[in-house]
């Protein structure tokens, strides 16, 4: 796609550009990349990728919702997201087109929109994408964005939730075992807009999701929930930035992850920034990990940066628990087979989070997907 640049900033993390060359080469020593196994990125980060991956989109949507493929000349492209790192810029410049999903102003959808993104070609075939989700003023919508298949995929997703609108977005990464996925999602909330954002990461060899939320005006309310299950050899990285720049907005972040098997690695980084002007901010972020076996590792880094004392609340917490041999012995000593014992523990761990989704038609299938993963393992 064509280039769009904002004036370059001196601090590398503040650079916004669609040009890959505006960004430094990634070495793996950067704070943002130090957890990511670059060797397994299939060259998405340094231009050595092999093209040829195939992405197909399938949209199921109620009447009134439109899904269309556009060029980047479309004014809706680039309004919310301009790439802020090299992979994101690569996705921008290599994406063949952009897909725009629009919910018209005032529409009240009773059925969820399902956008299924299927990849093909395997991990040695790269594909790139760009998606715009535009929820008009006063609209109410649920979107299930479901990623499956196998490919090396880098993409950008920009989401605009209009004034007084409400969006529930469920983003599912149920990739096959060798898929690589690096995604940047950026969400902008209008005045009094509500977002419920649910990330479910189950599959893939390497999944790295960056989610950024910003508020365009007062009264925005973002609830960001995440559930991940990393099995043998999987790397799952979730990075969140919630930037409060305007007064009286709220954010809640809660990610829960379970890990099992050798080299299962989960990384969670949650940055909440409250700028000086964002008085009346109410925020809390929490990450909980449950490590089910030896050999699995969870890194969890919550950050809270506050430039004003006039907040309603600001807090963060992180906790990593272990399912230990004594717990396993206790459950098994009641006749419960080892596999069922682990499932019982994981189910209980996630149930509390899924209950917060509220909509059984959404949470039910998610629990089933988790259980299917537990039953079949990483591939």
């Amino acid at each position: 796609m064509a280039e769009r640049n904002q004036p370059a900033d001196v601090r590398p993390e503040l650079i916004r550009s669609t040009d890959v060359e505006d960004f430094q080469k990634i070495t793996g020593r950067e704070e943002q990349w130090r957890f990511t196994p670059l060797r397994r990125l299939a060259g998405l980060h340094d231009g050595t990728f092999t093209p040829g991956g195939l992405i197909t989109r399938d949209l199921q949507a109620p009447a009134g919702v439109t899904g269309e493929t556009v060029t980047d000349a479309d004014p809706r492209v680039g309004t919310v997201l301009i790439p802020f790192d090299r992979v994101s810029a690569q996705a921008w410049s290599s994406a063949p087109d952009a897909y725009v999903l629009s919910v018209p102003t005032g529409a009240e959808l009773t059925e969820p929109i399902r956008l299924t993104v299927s990849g093909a070609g395997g991990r040695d075939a790269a594909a790139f994408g760009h998606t715009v989700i535009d929820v008009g003023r006063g609209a109410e919508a649920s979107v299930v964005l479901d990623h499956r298949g196998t490919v090396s995929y880098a993409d950008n997703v920009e989401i605009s939730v209009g004034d007084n609108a409400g969006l529930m977005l469920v983003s599912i990464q149920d990739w096959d075992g060798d898929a690589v996925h690096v995604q940047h999602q950026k969400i902008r909330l209008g005045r009094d807009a509500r977002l419920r954002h649910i990330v479910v990461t189950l599959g893939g060899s390497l999944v790295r999701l960056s989610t950024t939320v910003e508020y365009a005006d007062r009264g925005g309310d973002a609830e960001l929930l995440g559930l991940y299950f990393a099995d043998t050899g999987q790397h799952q990285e979730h990075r969140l930035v919630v930037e409060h720049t305007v007064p009286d907005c709220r954010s809640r972040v809660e990610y829960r992850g379970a890990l099992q098997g050798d080299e299962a690695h989960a990384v969670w980084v949650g940055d909440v920034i409250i700028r000086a002007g964002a008085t009346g901010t109410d925020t809390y972020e929490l990450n909980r990990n449950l490590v089910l076996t030896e050999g699995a590792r969870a890194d969890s880094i919550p950050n809270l940066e506050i430039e004003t004392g006039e907040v309603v609340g600001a807090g963060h917490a992180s906790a990593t628990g272990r399912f230990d041999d004594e717990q396993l012995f206790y459950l098994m000593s009641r006749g419960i087979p080892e596999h069922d014992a682990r499932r019982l523990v994981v189910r209980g761990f996630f149930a509390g989070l899924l209950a917060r989704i509220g909509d059984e038609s959404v949470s039910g299938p998610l629990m089933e997907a988790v259980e299917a993963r537990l039953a079949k393992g990483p591939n």
Partner: protein
Amino acid sequence: MATLDIRDLHVSVGTGEEEKEILKGVDLTISAGQTHAIMGPNGSGKSTLAYSVAGHPKYKVTQGSVTLDGEDVLSMTVDERARAGLFLAMQYPVEVPGVSMSNFLRSAATATRGEAPKIRTWVKEMKTAMDVLGMDPAFAERNVNEGFSGGEKKRHEILQLSLLKPAIAILDETDSGLDVDALRAVAEGVNRVSAAGDVGVLLITHYTRILRYITPDFVHVFVDGRIAEEGGPELADRLEADGYERFLKAPA
């Protein structure tokens, strides 16, 4: 009629240099319908015996056999032993965060019975069993043992005993740390299970207190990893009066 047969059981803990023999040849036979009490001083190896029969990975059987109706218990996994009919009420029940009591109990009942109990009868069964033990129904929604008091944990163990209906139940110091009311509730729970079914009970205890409520058919005195003396209920009375001194002083 179920019989648990323990023959010349030797058990060690630790590894290599640190390995230490705790059980030094235990012989014991428990049949359904009987209640046995094992009494012994702290550190004599009572819990080691209980955990070894249940299959805790920490304990290594170096010699001897354990069979249930002739089946080799020692070659079974922990869950297989439970499904074969063994139950251990633990001295220190384990907290399992994230798992609700109701899910746990239902999973355990499903596993030991071989099929899931019907929801409606199950809810009733659980409620009745909790009622009998003086447990608040609200416990069903709490996480397994999490934040339970010592007495609540022990009641929960007996609740499981009454729901899982094992062939042989080993109760490891279920009486310790209980106040009189809790002790009575727990003892009544055990007696009810004994009266209702064909269960063999092995009651491990440090004190004679619980034997006022549960009358054993056999008493075994356990000292330094083996049974030092056996008798009927009267042996417990003598221990009450004399303590374990006599056994501890006995030459090796």
